[in-house]
């Protein structure tokens, strides 16, 4: 879009007109061509190109000349250094003061310039663009870019000519995604406030009163247990519990048990304890007074050799985090102390992540991530008084459940209902084939753990069988062979269901 030529010459422009003129030139750079084309035609001596300089003046149009046209090489008037003039169709900037009558000599007292160069002054291209990499800024709205003094007030405690240097920016300052890794938690079932808990374990409170196994009326309390005992089964009034050695059972009131696990074995899904106890709370896991050692084992493709990994956790409000490059299976990333608890990423017959506490502590969600930046927690307190909050949102529970069910599936009931979950068929008089469908394909052939499962053959007749220890995978199903010393009719079907008491279950265990 071309600006009409007369607008550039010999006229007064209001502030609005001036702004519109230069706005249009900025918006349509080709419009400057109209002025460029105009300059060679300006020959009438004394013609003045005006421009608006400020908004002062009674009518708001205090003008300043842009250039005066000279029709010969003899100056018709004086020109100060820096002034513009048009001579022989060329725009010049005065480099030496010219008096009236002096000869105008290009290269001596005037230097050729262009409309585009002069317009740059109005379109905010910095005259002094600083040095490579220098931080520039405006000194005030509408004024030129500047450097050095007045350029940057301060940046990371530096002033004046500020050039970025190492340490100016970290990932937290710029909200950057790690270059390596995406902040994804490689652990399964890491959200301890609401974990996948298919085994549905319970423990007693250490302060619970205990009763003999025969005292089902809970009439004769025998003192506090003093430790977290494993709950085997429950009724509406009491829980049957066992000592750590598993050789004695006793009772506690139903109100004295809490969700949790004690002793060696799997607890919440994917977490295998070697020793110790923990309780499930809305804050996370709360470990017992004795040493808790629990691990999550990874499958082979989880950890890549040569890559950096970061492990993080908050135990009793303190952030423990460590980054290292996994050079080989001999690499161990570990952080913590006897007082703070500890975590580690290590290899022994496969990669695993472990949590160890040596006293009762609250264990917040852990994270194992590829990359050198911990993205699990954010400090919303101060350095002196930190308050670490989980940066990651809670995971999708259904997704976590599906992931966990690759490793184990539990069919159970906790109420007075027979719950059918599979069918079987007598392939001969003494051998029952049971096919159990699973939500996802199990990782491996599972070990079959059965507790008080009923076989209606068909109901109400109940068959007595010995369950096979292992099941063979067949896609999203597992085949289990049961045997019986009794004889049944080959070809008949049987219903497999939980008993109508709490604690009845069938567990397909394909854990690592």
């Amino acid at each position, binding site marked *: 879009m071309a600006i009409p030529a007369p607008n550039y010459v010999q006229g007064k422009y209001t502030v609005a007109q001036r702004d519109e003129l230069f706005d249009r030139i900025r918006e349509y750079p080709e419009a400057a061509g109209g002025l460029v084309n105009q300059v060679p035609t300006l020959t009438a001596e004394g013609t003045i190109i005006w421009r608006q300089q400020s908004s002062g003046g009674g009518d708001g149009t205090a003008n300043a000349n842009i250039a005066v046209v000279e029709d010969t090489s003899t100056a018709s008037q004086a020109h100060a250094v820096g002034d513009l003039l048009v001579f022989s169709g060329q725009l010049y900037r005065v480099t030496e003061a010219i008096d009236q009558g002096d000869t105008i000599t290009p290269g001596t007292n005037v230097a050729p310039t262009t409309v585009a160069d002069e317009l740059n002054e109005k379109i905010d291209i910095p005259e002094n663009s600083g040095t490579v990499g220098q931080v520039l800024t405006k000194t005030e709205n509408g004024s030129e870019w500047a450097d050095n003094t007045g350029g940057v007030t301060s940046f990371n405690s530096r002033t004046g000519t500020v050039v970025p240097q190492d340490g100016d920016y970290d990932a937290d300052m710029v909200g950057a995604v790690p270059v390596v890794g995406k902040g994804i938690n490689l652990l399964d079932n890491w959200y301890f406030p609401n974990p996948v808990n298919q085994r549905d374990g319970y423990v007693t409170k250490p302060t619970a009163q205990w009763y003999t196994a025969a005292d089902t009326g809970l009439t004769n309390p025998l003192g506090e247990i003093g430790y977290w005992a494993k709950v085997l089964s429950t009724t509406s009034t009491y829980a049957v519990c066992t000592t750590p050695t598993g050789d004695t059972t006793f009772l506690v009131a139903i109100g004295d048990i809490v969700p949790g696990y004690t002793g*060696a*074995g799997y607890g919440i899904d994917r977490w*295998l304890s*070697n020793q110790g106890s923990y309780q499930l709370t809305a804050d996370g896991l709360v470990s017992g007074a004795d040493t808790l050692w629990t*691990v999550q*084992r990874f499958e082979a493709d989880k950890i890549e050799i040569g890559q950096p990994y970061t492990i993080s956790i908050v135990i009793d409000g303190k952030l423990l985090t460590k980054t290292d490059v996994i050079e080989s299976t001999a690499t*161990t990333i570990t952080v913590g102390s006897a007082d703070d608890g500890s975590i*580690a990423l*290590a290899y*022994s*017959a*496969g990669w*695993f992540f472990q949590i160890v506490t040596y006293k009762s502590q609250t264990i917040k969600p852990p994270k194992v991530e590829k990359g050198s930046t911990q993205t699990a927690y954010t400090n919303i307190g101060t350095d002196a008084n930190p308050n670490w909050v989980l940066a990651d949102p809670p995971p999708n529970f259904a997704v976590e459940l599906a992931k966990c069910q690759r490793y184990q599936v539990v069919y159970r009931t906790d109420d007075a209902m027979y719950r059918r979950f599979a069918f079987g068929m007598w*392939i*001969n008089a003494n*051998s029952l084939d049971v096919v159990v469908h699973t939500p996802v394909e199990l990782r*491996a*052939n*599972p*070990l079959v*753990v059965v507790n008080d499962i009923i076989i209606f053959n068909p109901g109400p007749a109940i068959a007595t069988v010995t369950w096979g*220890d*292992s*099941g*063979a995978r067949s896609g999203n199903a597992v085949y289990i*062979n049961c045997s019986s010393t009794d004889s049944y009719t080959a070809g008949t079907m049987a219903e497999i269901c939980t008993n109508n008491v709490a604690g009845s279950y069938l567990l397909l*265990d*394909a*854990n*690592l």
Partner: protein
Amino acid sequence: MDFIYNKHYIQTNERGEIVNGFSDAFRQPSEGDICINEQGGYQFRLFPDGEENPPLFDFPSMIPLYKYENGEVKHRTEEELAADRQAWREEQERLAAMPTREDRIEAQVTFTAMMTDTLLPEEDEDDV
């Protein structure tokens, strides 16, 4: 770094055939059980890099597939398996030839009816 290992055990019959295998993550061994791996994983394996919880029996004959011989777990030979399968098939044929419980009941009912002259006439096909 210390780690949690599990021991793997097998049980054999009088012929040295493996009839059970388990990891001590799930049950404790009894006297006579044989430990085949003291640093195993959570799940039972017959061989260090073998399948977890492998089927130990042929299907549907339920013939043991493995044996413990000279301190080693081995596959039973094809000849051994073939012989056992043949014996199993013959046993199945013998059982099939024997009257079933239903056959015996029907024979007893028929005999009683004949002795009491209460035998029902043959069904007329037109009545079906």
